[in-house]
C-alpha cells in the first residue's frame, strides 16, 4: 500500500463509481471484504414492495447494510381490507409490524418520513432532519390520488365519502357508514380508470359488501358507477353475483353513464354523464384516479404519465441512476399493480442490486402474479400469470400460461379457491413481514 493510505484505499473502493473510473469493473467489482465497507441500501416504504426488498436484500447478501424507512410503526394491508368490510376479518388481522425485519433479518428499520431525495449526492433527507446516505436506493412509496380529477372530491371530502383505497382509518370509516346504513339503502362504488392499484379490488369490495348486506341488510342495493367499460374477472364475478346475491348489484359502465364527473359530499350525490345524471347514495365509496406516491414525484422519478419508468429487468429508474422503483409506483409492463407484484418485483430488485454490487450479471427476471378474490366466504376465484422480459425489455405474460379460474367449475373448486385465497394472504404476509 505504498503511497496510498489505507483510509484512501478504503474510500476509493467504497465509493461506487470510483472503481469503474479506474477501469476495475470489467465484469467484476469484487474487492476483499475486509477492505470494503458494506454497501448501503436504503429502502423507502415498508409495504409489500419495500419490506420484501429489505428482507431479500439481506437474504441474498447478509453483509449488506440495509435501512428501511417507513413512517408508520405498523402496516395495514390493502389485501384483506375488503374482508374486514365483509365481516370476515378485523383490522388487527390485517396489521403487521416490522419486528422480524429488524430482529430476524437484520434490517435497520427507521420510522421517519422521507422529505427529499438527492439523487446526485445519494442522500435521503428525513422529516427529523436526519440525512441517510446510500449506494443504491429502493423507492416503494405506493400510490397517491389525483385529487383534482373528480369535481368536489378532494382530501377533505374523503373524510366524509371514503376512498378506503389505502387501508386504515379509511377502511374503518367506510365500515362504520355501512354498519350505520338502513336496510334498503343504496351503496354506490365508483372505481377509477386504469392504471390503478389492485384492478380486481373494486369488484371484490362489491362482493364483500354484498355479503354483509345479504347477512344484515338484505333489501339493500349496490350500484357500480365505473370509469371503465369492463372490470377484472368480470364474467366470474357476475356469475357469482347472480348466484349469491341475485338482483342486488347493478353495473354501469362508462359508456352507459358510469363515469363520475362530480361529487357533492354534503348531499351524498354523485354526478355522471357530464353532470346530467345524479345518483344519491346512502353510502358512497369514491376510488379516485391514481399516480405514483408523492415522494416519487418530488424525487424526479415520474414522467408525464404520473408513474415511474424503470428498466424492467433491474427496476432501476430510467430518470435517476442508482435509484430503483418497485411496487405500484413503477411501470412494470404487463404486471398489474398488486401486492403480489410488489413482492415479486422486490425480490427481483434485491437480486439485481446484490448482483450489481458484486459486478456480476443480474439474473434473468421471472415474475408471477396470483390474485385471489373472495366473492363470498366460501366462494373464491383467481387470476394468475407468469411474466418474462421480452426482447424489447418489457415484462409480458408467458403465452399459454396463466389465466382465470374456469368459468364453468364445480362448486367445490370455488370453495377450494376461497381457502387458497386466505392461504395466499398468510403466505404473502409471512413472506413479506415474517
Amino acid at each position: 500500500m505504498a503511497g496510498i493510505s489505507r483510509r484512501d484505499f478504503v474510500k476509493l473502493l467504497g465509493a461506487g463509481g470510483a472503481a469503474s473510473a479506474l477501469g476495475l469493473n470489467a465484469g467484476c467489482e469484487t474487492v476483499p471484504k475486509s477492505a470494503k465497507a458494506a454497501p448501503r441500501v436504503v429502502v423507502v416504504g415498508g409495504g409489500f414492495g419495500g419490506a420484501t426488498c429489505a428482507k431479500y436484500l439481506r437474504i441474498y447478501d447478509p453483509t449488506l447494510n440495509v435501512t428501511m424507512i417507513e413512517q408508520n410503526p405498523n402496516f395495514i394491508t390493502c389485501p384483506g381490507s375488503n374482508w374486514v368490510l365483509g365481516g370476515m376479518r378485523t383490522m388487527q388481522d390485517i396489521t403487521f409490524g416490522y419486528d422480524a425485519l429488524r430482529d430476524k433479518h437484520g434490517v435497520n428499520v427507521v420510522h421517519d418520513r422521507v422529505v427529499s431525495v438527492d439523487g446526485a449526492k445519494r442522500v435521503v433527507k428525513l422529516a427529523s432532519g436526519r440525512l441517510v446516505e446510500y449506494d443504491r436506493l429502493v423507492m416503494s412509496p405506493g400510490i397517491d390520488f389525483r385529487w383534482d380529477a373528480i369535481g368536489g372530491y378532494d382530501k377533505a371530502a374523503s373524510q366524509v365519502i371514503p376512498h378506503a383505497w389505502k387501508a386504515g382509518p379509511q377502511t374503518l370509516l367506510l365500515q362504520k357508514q355501512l354498519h350505520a346504513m338502513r336496510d334498503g339503502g343504496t351503496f354506490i362504488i365508483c372505481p377509477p380508470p386504469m392504471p390503478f392499484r389492485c384492478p380486481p379490488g373494486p369488484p371484490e369490495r362489491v362482493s364483500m359488501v354484498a355479503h354483509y348486506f345479504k347477512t344484515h341488510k338484505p333489501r339493500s342495493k349496490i350500484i357500480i358507477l365505473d370509469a371503465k367499460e369492463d372490470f377484472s374477472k368480470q364474467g366470474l364475478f357476475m356469475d357469482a353475483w347472480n348466484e349469491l346475491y341475485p338482483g342486488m348489484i347493478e353495473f354501469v359502465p362508462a359508456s352507459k353513464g358510469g363515469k363520475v364527473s362530480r361529487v357533492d359530499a354534503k348531499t351524498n350525490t354523485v354526478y355522471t354523464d357530464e353532470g346530467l345524471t345524479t345518483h344519491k347514495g346512502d353510502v358512497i365509496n369514491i376510488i379516485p384516479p391514481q399516480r405514483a406516491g408523492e415522494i416519487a414525484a418530488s424525487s424526479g422519478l415520474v414522467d408525464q404519465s404520473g408513474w415511474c419508468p424503470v428498466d424492467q429487468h433491474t427496476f432501476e429508474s430510467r430518470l435517476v441512476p442508482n435509484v430503483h422503483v418497485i411496487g405500484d409506483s413503477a411501470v412494470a409492463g404487463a404486471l398489474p399493480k398488486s401486492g403480489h407484484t410488489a413482492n415479486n418485483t422486490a425480490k427481483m430488485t434485491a437480486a439485481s442490486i446484490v448482483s450489481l454490487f458484486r459486478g456480476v450479471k443480474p439474473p434473468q427476471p421471472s415474475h408471477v402474479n396470483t390474485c385471489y378474490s373472495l366473492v363470498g366466504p366460501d366462494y373464491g376465484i383467481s387470476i394468475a400469470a407468469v411474466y418474462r422480459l421480452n426482447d424489447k425489455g418489457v415484462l409480458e405474460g408467458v403465452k399459454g400460461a396463466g389465466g382465470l379460474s374456469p368459468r364453468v367449475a364445480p362448486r367445490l373448486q370455488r370453495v377450494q379457491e376461497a381457502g387458497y385465497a386466505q392461504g395466499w394472504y398468510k403466505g404473502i404476509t409471512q413472506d413479506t413481514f415474517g
Partner: protein
Amino acid sequence: MFLSNKHGKAVLTGLAGTLALACAASLQAQEISRAAVIASTCYTCHGTYGVSPGSIPSINDISAERMVSILQGFRSGQRASTVMGRHASGYTDEEIKEVAQYFGNLQKRGK
C-alpha cells in the same frame, strides 16, 4: 485525485490484475441463479423457502424428482389443480428441473 499520487497508480494497476483473477474464480458463485429467482416467486404463496404458514401446501420437503413429476403433471393437466396448472405452464422442462433441484438443495442446507 488518487491517480495524481505517483505511487498510487502502480499499486492500483497491480490490484486490478489480482482482482481479475480472483473474480473469474468466484464469478459463478457470486451469481444468483435463475432457479433461485423462480423459487422466490413460489414463496409468495407457499411462504419463504416454501414453508407455508396457511392452507396452501408447504413445498419445502419434496424431493427434486417428485417435484419435477408434480410440476410436469400440473403443466400437462394430468394432475388436477386449481391454479398450479396455470403457473406450471409458464416454465420449460429445464426450468422445472432447476427449480426442483434448488428446493432439494435448500433441504440439504436445512432451510
